[in-house]
Every structure is written in structure tokens, then in C-alpha cells.
């Protein structure tokens, strides 16, 4: 097997959308009109994901992340360009592609709602034709990584959101796929569950060398899991490199935190190239008394925010 898990070359995806007209007259017009406009969800994206990598695939809502993932999983066909997943064209070999990927899509459980987790696992084992030995090994690995006993015999519908997400992630790795797609896996979870899930993903990635493509809005996920991130906005790739590199790019930025005498914190993002931090502090000091001051490196969260706002373009 080659070293590339995913190769995308100049991939575009257009959707045809009916032009809607306003008002009652417009609605009647819409009934008969074939007035379509083309919306480009993904524009000319080229990228490569190597085996064993954990990639943070980021972008604001509606940037084209889900569309990209749907193309990689073989659900959608690219309008143009070349897309290979595990060396194959996913849309043309959907079932074959599905054998080598695992998917967790947001808060939607893919497990059988009324079955205990272990029964779902057994059905998945049969669906993916996983040899008994590999299956047992995987369950053992799960046992060593998380405490699965409490959820193993629980029907999915009775689980908490955290348990369900955990179950879905375990189910996605069960057939030892080459690539796992995780779409906002930690959305809506509490802090300890988030940590648990991140640990699990890291552990599975390390043990099985599984490529993980992660979309998230939680920069905690990115900090904990990804070394490399790809950012897409309005369908175009705007960043593809290490996180560290990105932080260096914004290296002159500092987060200034000021505590007032009434114990409220104020935050300012300052570019040292253009503004002097001390000047800002002095200025703030004039406004109101300052009790404490902290100067921090820019956080990933703020870096991403900057980029979404157009900082890197």
C-alpha cells in the first residue's frame, strides 16, 4: 500500500440549486421554472493525507468540510478533479471503499438504536467480515484503552450522549479501517468526556496507525490530537501545514489579559509588530485601575479565528 491515504487533485463539487423567487407569485413561478444556479461547495482543492496522520480539517460552518468528507466516503461524486482514497476512486467503488473507512458523523449514531452495544459490534463484525481473532483482539484493545464494561450491554437508546459518541467511535474502528473520519466527535460533551474521547482517538491512532481526518470547531480537539491542520473556507483551501507553523505565522500576536480591581478579566489581541503591548497597558491603566496583567502566546483558537476572518490570505 502506498503511503498516501487520501489524494485530492483539483477537486471541485458543484450543486445545482433552484433559484427561488419571493412571494406567492414567485412560488408559483418556482413550480414551473427550471431556473437553476450552480453553487460551488468545494473549489479546486488539492491535498494529500499520509497514513497514520491525524489531520484537523477545519473551516467555518458551510465552508465545504462535510462535502469534502462525503466525497471521500464515496457518497458524493466530485464534479471534477481526481480523488483517491486508499488508491481507489471512492464513488465508483463505494462498498469497497467502505470496507477501509470508518465514519462518525456528528451526533448521529450509526448503531442499531435498540440493541446493546455488544450486539451492534457483532453485527458490524459480520457486516465487515472481520475474522474472529481480529475482532477479539480489537475488543481487548478497547478494554485496555477505555472502560467499556458499563456500556457494553446497554442499548444505545439508553446511553448518554458521551457514551453514545464513545460507542460510535469504537464502532468506527472495529473493522480496523485505514482511515477514520470523525465529524465533530466531541460536540456537546462535557470536559472529562472530551478528554476521554481524545485519549481514545490518540490511543487507537497509535496502536493501529489509523489515519484520522477530524473536523471540529473545538480547538481543544485540535491541540490535543492534530499536528497538521487543513483549513478550508468558501470551498477553497486556505491553509495546509503544521499547527506550529501557523502559530509562528501569528507569532507576533500576544493575548493581553488585564484584571481590573473588581476581578473582571479583559482580553486584547495585540500584534507586536504594529502595537506595543506596554502602550496598551498604559492606556488601559489610564481608563481604570489594573490589578493584574498576563501576556500570553496566541492560542490556537485565536489563530483559527484570525484565519477565518481573513488573516492568512
Amino acid at each position, binding site marked *: 500500500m502506498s503511503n498516501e491515504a487520501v489524494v485530492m487533485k483539483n477537486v471541485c463539487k458543484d*450543486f445545482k440549486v433552484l433559484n427561488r423567487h419571493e412571494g406567492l407569485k414567485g412560488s408559483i413561478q418556482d413550480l414551473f421554472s427550471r431556473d437553476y444556479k450552480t453553487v460551488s461547495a468545494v473549489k479546486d482543492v488539492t491535498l494529500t493525507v499520509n497514513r497514520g496522520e491525524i489531520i484537523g480539517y477545519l473551516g467555518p460552518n458551510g465552508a465545504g*468540510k*462535510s462535502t469534502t468528507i*462525503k466525497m471521500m*466516503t*464515496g*457518497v*458524493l461524486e466530485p464534479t471534477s478533479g481526481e480523488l483517491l482514497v486508499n488508491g481507489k476512486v471512492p464513488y465508483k467503488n*463505494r*462498498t*469497497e471503499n*467502505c*470496507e477501509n*473507512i470508518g*465514519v462518525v*458523523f*456528528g451526533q*448521529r449514531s*450509526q448503531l*442499531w438504536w*435498540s*440493541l446493546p452495544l455488544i*450486539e451492534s459490534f*457483532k*453485527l458490524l463484525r*459480520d*457486516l*465487515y*467480515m472481520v475474522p474472529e481473532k481480529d475482532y477479539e483482539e480489537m475488543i481487548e484493545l478497547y478494554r485496555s484503552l477505555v472502560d467499556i464494561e458499563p456500556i457494553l450491554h446497554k*442499548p444505545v437508546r439508553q446511553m448518554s450522549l458521551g457514551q453514545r459518541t464513545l460507542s460510535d467511535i469504537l464502532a468506527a474502528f472495529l473493522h480496523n479501517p485505514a482511515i477514520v473520519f470523525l*465529524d465533530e466527535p466531541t460536540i456537546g460533551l462535557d470536559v472529562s468526556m472530551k478528554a476521554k474521547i481524545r485519549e481514545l482517538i490518540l490511543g487507537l491512532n497509535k496502536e493501529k496507525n489509523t489515519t484520522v481526518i477530524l473536523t471540529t470547531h473545538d480547538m481543544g480537539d485540535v491541540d490535543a490530537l492534530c499536528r497538521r491542520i487543513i483549513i478550508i473556507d468558501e470551498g477553497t483551501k486556505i491553509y495546509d501545514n503544521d499547527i506550529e507553523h501557523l502559530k509562528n505565522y501569528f507569532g507576533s500576536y500576544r493575548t493581553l489579559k488585564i484584571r481590573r480591581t473588581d476581578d473582571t478579566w479583559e482580553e486584547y489581541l495585540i500584534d507586536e509588530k504594529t502595537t506595543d503591548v506596554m502602550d496598551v497597558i498604559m492606556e488601559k491603566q489610564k481608563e481604570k485601575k489594573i490589578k493584574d496583567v498576563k501576556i500570553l502566546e496566541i492560542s490556537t483558537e485565536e489563530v483559527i479565528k484570525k484565519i477565518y476572518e481573513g488573516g492568512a490570505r
Partner: protein
Amino acid sequence: MQKRGLIFYARMYRKILVQDLKSKMSYRADFVISTFGMIMTNLSGFVTFLILFRNFPTINGWDYYHMLFLYGFSLVALTPVQCFFDNNWNLRFMVQSGDFIKYCFRPVNVFFYFISEVFDVKGLGQLAFGIGTIVYAWVHIGIPVTPLVIVKLIVYLLTASLFMIALMNFAAATCFWIKGSGYVMVIMFRFKDFAKYPASIFSGIFKVIFTFIIPIAFIAYYPSLVILQPGNVPPLSWISPLFGIVFVYLSYKFWMLGVRKYDFTGS
């Protein structure tokens, strides 16, 4: 790589079914109520039918017991669609909410994976009712019981059920293109009521529609003629199994086309 053939799918279906039944049993109240509901529905339909045909002794040459036979025949023929293809009713909700996409992530046929998820036990009550009605009518009409007739009965019952399965597949798959597909399904499902009457009572244009366009005449009328009028079977009845297979195949293709054409927008 191993191939997933018919045996794989049959075995998989059985496993999913067993699990599904196990979990259904765990909701005992739900199980009892839905079974009770099904019996009542059938009973009321049956009583209406009795009252109606007690008063009109023959319809277009069809007497009371022949009508009963047709009625029972259509009930049995509706069982497979009720039991095995019930998830079609959920399709439009899944498609609209975006949940449908989960069926596309498994290395198995999407239609199979979707349909296998639900087995509706309620259909079994209908099956028992239908068989009872057929037997009752059979005895009164006095059709000879030979192995050949039994085989014919089974073959043509299966044929009839194929048409209903295909109709519901077509109706459900419209949701990939239009929003109001619920109406299409309800209308199709209502049409099945016409199947309980001999198609010969419909005149001209309706007969053509119900034979070739929305082929509900095949759900009971044409197939049952093989048993009811063994001396005078129209050619359409003989070839109905072939029609049924082609029709189901087309409906499956239509369904899968919907999956491929659908945009899966939003996340």
C-alpha cells in the same frame, strides 16, 4: 477480497432480524398494543366487507365466497411489504433530516441495509387473518386441493406481493426528488384497497390504469384468477410473475437512482 453474495445477505438478514425481534420483545406493552391494534384493524375491515357483500350477493359475476377469497388473497399478498419493507415509511424522514447518510457508510448494499433495519411483526396478524379467509372461502367454493393448486397458490401469492413491494418502493423513493412524498406513499397505500375488488368491475380507462400504470390489479385480481377460474385464465395472469419480478427490479433501480442522485446537503 471476499465477495458478498446472496448467502451473505440472507445470513446477515437473519442475524439482524433475530436481534431486532429480541429487542422488540423487551417492549412488551408496545408489542401487545400494536398486535391488538392490528387485529382490530383487520377485524373492522373484515366486518365492513361482510356487511357490504351480504347485501350485494354478486358483483359482476363474482359471488360472495369468490370475493372473500380475493380479499384474503390481497391480505396475504400485503404481508411481505408490511413485514419486511416497512422502513420505507421512514425513508422520507431520514432523507429530510440527513440521517439517511449513515446507510451509505457500510460495505453492503444501501437498499438492503436500510430495509433490513425494520421488521414489522404486526404484519403477521394480517397474514393469519388472510390465510384464515382464504381457507374459509376455499372450502365454500369447493376448489379441489391438489399439490399443483397449492404450488400455484404460493407462486401467485408471492407474485402478488411483488407488485405491492414494488409500488411502495417507487412511492418511497420519490422522497429523493420531492418534499411531499408522504402523500405519494399514502395514496399508493390507499390504492391497495382497490386490490380487494375484481378488476373486471372497473371500466375501460381505470382498468388500463390499474393494470399497466399503477398495477394494483396484479395485487390480487390477476394472480387469483389462476386459482379461481382455472379453465379461463387470461394471459396477463400467467405472465404476472415475470411482470412482478421486472417491476420489483425497476423499483429497486429507481430507489438506488434516488440515492445516487441525492445531494446529501447539510451536515
